[in-house]
Structure formats: structure tokens, C-alpha cells
């Protein structure tokens, strides 16, 4: 066995080492570049269904949550109403913010918040923004969410939204008064019925 290193090996070995080092460096650089690109791409998880933020200032939501019962309400019932009422309130905000500030996402929001029958009934003209409406600014957003204290699984939301915007270079104002009837089931809260009254201001 020859343990000595030949002259040729002495030359090749440093070259091989350098090549390996270069390869390692290139691999590391590639990895880092790929990592950066992945971070810039949208996540594979579905985005939360909230309206896209606009640069136009919007009216603050004024929300009241209240129990309704036929008897004295215990502390435990009140706490349950407040907790579930907050969830219903968030749902209501999502529905109306999407309707007026991010209407392209309305189908997705409706699918997640309305029963199938109620969702079908919603597909009719006269509710929401006129086509081509832009620069929407809400001037009033108010909701009262009342829960049936006996079960805290039935709720009624009374909503008022007033807004202004531009439609084909014309300014418009709109006022909507709505009632949503909601029920909590296995899939969470769902709107089972609704009534919208929308008219120009």
C-alpha cells in the first residue's frame, strides 16, 4: 500500500477542496435565496375572512350586546351571553364590512356565515353597493346584538350602516337598516334569516 501522496494528488487535493467549498457556498446561497422567496409568497393557509383594509378612514363600529330573558338572569348566564355575543358581533362586522368594503369576498363570507337557504335568498339585487362603486366611506356603523339568555344560542342583530361613495363619477349616499336572525348549531353561528332595508340618503 502506498501511503505517500504523489505530486499530482498534491495539486488536485487543494483544487478539490476549493471546489467543494465553492459548491457548499453556492448551495447555501441558493438555499437562502429560496427561503426569502418563500417568505414573500402568500401562505398556503386560507386568509382570514376580513375585509381588506382601505386607506379611507371608516366610521368606528358601535356595538351593544344585551341578553333578553323571561326571568332573572344569573351571573353565569350573563357571562355566557357576553362571550357568545362578542362572537356574533364579530360575525356581524365581517358580513357588513365585506358587503360594503370588500364585496368581491362576499360569496366566501356568506358561505361561512349563512345557512344554505339564507345564502340562496341573499342572491338578489338591491342589497349592497351599486356596481362600480368606489371610494366608499362609512359614516355610521352601529349594531345591537341581543341573545336569548335561556340558551345563549339564538340571537338577533339589528344593524345600521350609512355610507357615501362615488359611482361613475357621481357621489352617492346610502343607508341600510338590517336585521339578522342567528342560531348557534354544530357548525357554529349561522344567519338563518335576514331583512335588509336599503335606500339612498
Amino acid at each position, binding site marked *: 500500500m502506498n501511503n505517500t501522496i504523489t505530486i499530482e494528488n498534491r495539486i488536485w487535493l487543494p483544487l478539490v477542496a476549493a471546489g467543494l467549498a465553492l459548491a457548499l457556498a453556492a448551495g447555501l446561497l441558493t438555499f437562502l435565496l429560496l427561503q426569502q422567496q418563500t417568505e414573500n409568497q402568500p401562505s398556503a393557509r386560507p386568509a382570514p375572512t376580513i375585509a381588506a383594509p382601505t386607506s379611507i378612514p371608516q366610521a368606528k363600529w358601535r356595538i351593544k350586546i*344585551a341578553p*333578553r*330573558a*323571561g*326571568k332573572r338572569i344569573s351571573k353565569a348566564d350573563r357571562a355566557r351571553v357576553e362571550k357568545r355575543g362578542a362572537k356574533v358581533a364579530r360575525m356581524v362586522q365581517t358580513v357588513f364590512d365585506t358587503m360594503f368594503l370588500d364585496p368581491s369576498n362576499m360569496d366566501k363570507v356568506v358561505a361561512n356565515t349563512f345557512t344554505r337557504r339564507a345564502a340562496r335568498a341573499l342572491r338578489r339585487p338591491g342589497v349592497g353597493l351599486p356596481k362600480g362603486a368606489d371610494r366608499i366611506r362609512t359614516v355610521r356603523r352601529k349594531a*345591537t346584538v*341581543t341573545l*336569548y339568555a*335561556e*340558551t345563549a*344560542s*339564538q340571537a*338577533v342583530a*339589528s344593524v345600521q350602516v350609512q355610507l357615501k361613495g362615488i359611482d361613475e363619477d357621481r357621489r352617492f349616499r346610502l343607508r341600510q337598516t338590517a*336585521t339578522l*336572525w342567528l*342560531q348557534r*348549531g354544530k357548525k357554529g353561528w349561522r344567519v*338563518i*334569516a335576514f331583512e335588509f332595508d336599503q335606500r339612498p340618503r
Partner: protein
Amino acid sequence: MKRLLALCVILAVGVSLVPAIGDSRRVGAATIVAGRVHDAYQPLDGKLFVLVIGNDARAGNPDNVRADAIHIVGINTRSLKGGILNFPRDSYVPLAGGGTGRINEALVRGGPKGVARTVENLTGIRLDYWVMTGFVGFRGLIEDIGRVEMRIPQPIFDPRGSGAKLKKGKYGLGPLNALAFVRTRKTIAGGDIGRTTNQGRFLLGMLTEFRRETARSPSAVFKWMAATQKHTRLNVSSAELFQLGVLASRVRPKDVGNVTVPVSLGSAGAASVVFIQGGARSIYARFRRTASL
């Protein structure tokens, strides 16, 4: 061995007491009772039918009472139109379980479900729910929901019968006056048939009041739910009750017909009865098809 036997006896006694303890609402005065007519709840094609029974019990809902008020309330959940079909209590009909007799006897024979089967066999209408009350439950419900506004076209004065002392006009009826109004028969036109029609009018009055309140404040539906559940032993969940309430709030009283089946006076043996006329069949068919009158 003795200890084991004693333990078994104690357990047996305890188990037998559980239904009475755990179901205390059933024992004693459940002033309004309600339930599904059929175990499998299958509302057909957007139509909903509720059998409303008023019995003549002065307290609670004991078994040996007659049905003084029998009405089918129908709602078409698509058109949001409806109807109330009224049956005079002396209507001579085939009874579920066999034989023929006055329709109000069906309650004695078979309870609310017996009345429901009798009415289903008569009309061909598949009923979804039944609800029954006597005097106490009716008064309690009206007390909780508030006055029901009614138009009284002629004064009603029946101090010895129903106790009614009602002036002509349109005004709210409290619990006592409401009960007197729906009970009066001797001093009004049409006698018992007029009373039956008035009972249908009162149901419409309740719907009007309900709609007025829920239009002003949609959450008023919970007040009505609470009142109903307080006075009622229900085989109907809060979820179903809520859905029924929301549905009722969408139905306008003017879209609900109030019809009493056409009858003629007669007798069966020594009993004074009324015979339902052949024209009722077309009414049943229309109601069955559309759930509205």
C-alpha cells in the same frame, strides 16, 4: 345478603323516583302543552301545519277534558301566506280509534295526538305540531305577552256564561277579557260556530300583536319565546321555537285567511251535533296543497 337486598330495594325505589323528580314539570300544572304530531319531523315542501287545541279545563291539562277549540294553522314558508281552519266542537266526524262522534271527544279518547289523528284522517292534512291549553295557560300567556288588540263589531255581554262585558270598538284585551271573548257563544251571532270563528280571529290578533312588537324591536321574539316556554311543556326545542317565531314574524295577518268549515245543524241520537258539509272537501284540498286559505 340482607344488606345486599336492602341496597337493591333502595336502588329500585330511587330509580323509580327519578322520572318524577327529573321531570317535575310534567307533574302538576303544565298549563300549555305542545309537541310534534309525528316522531319524524318532516315539514313537507315548504308547508307547516300546527293543530291548536283549547280545552275546557279550569286548571292544568288533565286527561278527561274535551276540546272546545280546534284549529289548524297553516303557513306556506315560501309564499309566506297562511290560513286558519276552524272546526266547531260539535262537528260529527269519524274519530281516530274507531266510531263516530263529536270531534271534541277525540281529546278524551286519545289526548292531543288522538285529536291530531282524527283531524288528519278527516282532512288529509299531515300535521307537524300540536299545542294545547286550558283556561289557566291561556290567561298566563296573554298576561306575559301583553294585551291583544281586537275589533269587537258588536258589544258582547255574557255575564253568566263566559263573563264577557265587552264594548264595541277596537282595543286591547287583557287576560280575562281575552278568555271571555274566545269563550262566548250564547250571546253572539252564529252561536258556537260564531265562537269558533272568533277564536280564529283571536289567533290572528295574536299574530298582529307579535308582528307589531317584532317590527318595533326584532328581539321581542325572545319575549314571546320566554312566555311560551314558561307556560308550556314543550316537545319542541328552543331552536325550533325560534325558527317558528322568525317565520311567523314574516307573515302578514292579511295574508292569512280565517275559515270555519261549512256545517249544518243536526242531531245524532239524542245529541245535538253539526254535520260538516261536502264543500269542506275542496277547502281541505286547497289548504293541503297551499297551506293557505
